[in-house]
């Protein structure tokens, strides 16, 4: 699906927010892709993601180690993770390109930032999935400050009530912005929720 698309918030708040997905294509190049995925996991680990997980195991914010993620790779494995700096994202892509592994890579982020990385690494991007926003019965949506947090899990695993609880606990001084961000991050089982960004977004509620 398009779970890394449709992240809400201002361009400024999305500046340090990148999601990388590595996807073997079923019946095209997924067979024997495990070793390549492990190579990419090595690269990702060495550079240092903000969050990482897999459908099979959950994420590093739920007590899973990267070794456990590796050990539970399925026949059609995937790598998905989140970076909170352009420099790190650039380094990961540079090294993956250098390895020439032949797996499909998508990056979600601000258009200008991703294009900038591509141009610097002489990568010719293939296609784009634009977000044209949310429509229909939009009166059912929670407030924008809730949406900018919960849309970091595109599978919809983060409830609006959990985000409201996190905001409330930061306001009351019961949780630090970081601890509240981790609480909100946990239901996102594949690990693309950017905890650094969430911590920044939640920090504005301190002392309110």
């Amino acid at each position, binding site marked *: *699906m398009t779970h890394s698309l449709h992240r809400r918030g201002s361009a400024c708040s999305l500046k340090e927010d990148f999601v990388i997905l590595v996807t073997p294509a*079923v019946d095209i190049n997924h067979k024997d892709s495990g070793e390549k995925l492990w190579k990419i996991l090595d690269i990702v680990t060495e550079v240092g993601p903000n969050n990482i997980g897999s459908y099979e195991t959950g994420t590093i914010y739920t007590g899973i180690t990267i070794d456990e993620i590796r050990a539970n790779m399925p026949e059609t494995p995937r790598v998905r993770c989140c970076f909170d700096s352009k420099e790190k994202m650039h380094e990961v892509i540079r090294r993956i390109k250098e390895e020439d592994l032949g797996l*499909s890579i998508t990056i979600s982020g601000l258009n200008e930032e991703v294009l900038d990385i591509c141009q610097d690494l002489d990568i010719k991007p293939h296609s784009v999935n634009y977000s044209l926003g949310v429509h229909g019965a939009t009166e059912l949506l929670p407030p924008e400050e809730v949406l900018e947090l919960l849309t970091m899990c595109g*599978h919809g695993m983060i409830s609006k009530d959990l985000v409201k609880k996190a905001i409330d606990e930061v306001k009351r001084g019961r949780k630090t912005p970081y601890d509240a961000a981790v609480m909100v991050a946990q239901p996102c089982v594949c690990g693309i929720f950017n905890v650094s960004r969430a911590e920044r977004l939640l920090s504005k509620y301190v002392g309110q």
Partner: protein
Amino acid sequence: MLINKELCIGCGLCVPYCPVNAISIKDRKAEIDQDSCTECGTCGRRSIVKCPTSAFYDREDVTKYPRSIRKYFSDPMATHVETKVPGRGTEEIKTNDVTGRVGKGQYGIGIEMGRPSVATSYRDVEKMTMALAKFDIEHEPCNPIKFLFEDEKKGTLTKEALEQRVISTIIEFNVDKDQLIPVLETIMETGKTLDTVFSLDLIARFEDTDKMPEIPDLSGLGLEPRPNSKINLGLGRPLKED
């Protein structure tokens, strides 16, 4: 998902975690509304919700049709049987460089019903697929919604599917460039009749790799691309040539 009332101590810890507000406390016990529950599995994950008595357990029919529709379209840790893809069951742009699903001269459209935060019934999904039927579109064959049609030409879904509710589901198809505006007009018009929301995707191919692909001015429809998107870097092999 179900709750063992013998084990539940009514602490309420689980309540804010449910993405569709299906859990409530009644008579000091947690209760899950089975019509609202999408079987996403969040409440039962002990590493997340940490129910002190492990009171959650799966319904016996959770992986049996038609209840399985809820599970496979809502729980990202479940893999769709038909497409072998987890999540919402489609690779969409993620592998477009090797599948060529969206070719040059085309746009790909994804209508992500229920997203974000609201969830959707398949009755609302059918309103959209029926409205689009007049364009004689072909729904993406590797998207699991394909298996829920009663009559794809008419856009009607099976009666079992119509009774189900999921976190989100993606209506996915390609259009030729001259079809884009009338199709988007129909989507936006149908959106006014829904009891849910939808996130709208537009997939385009790069022509000049130094700048983002140009798309028509859609402001008259109230549509404007957000500054963030998802870009396929074209590093997959073998590259699918058009």
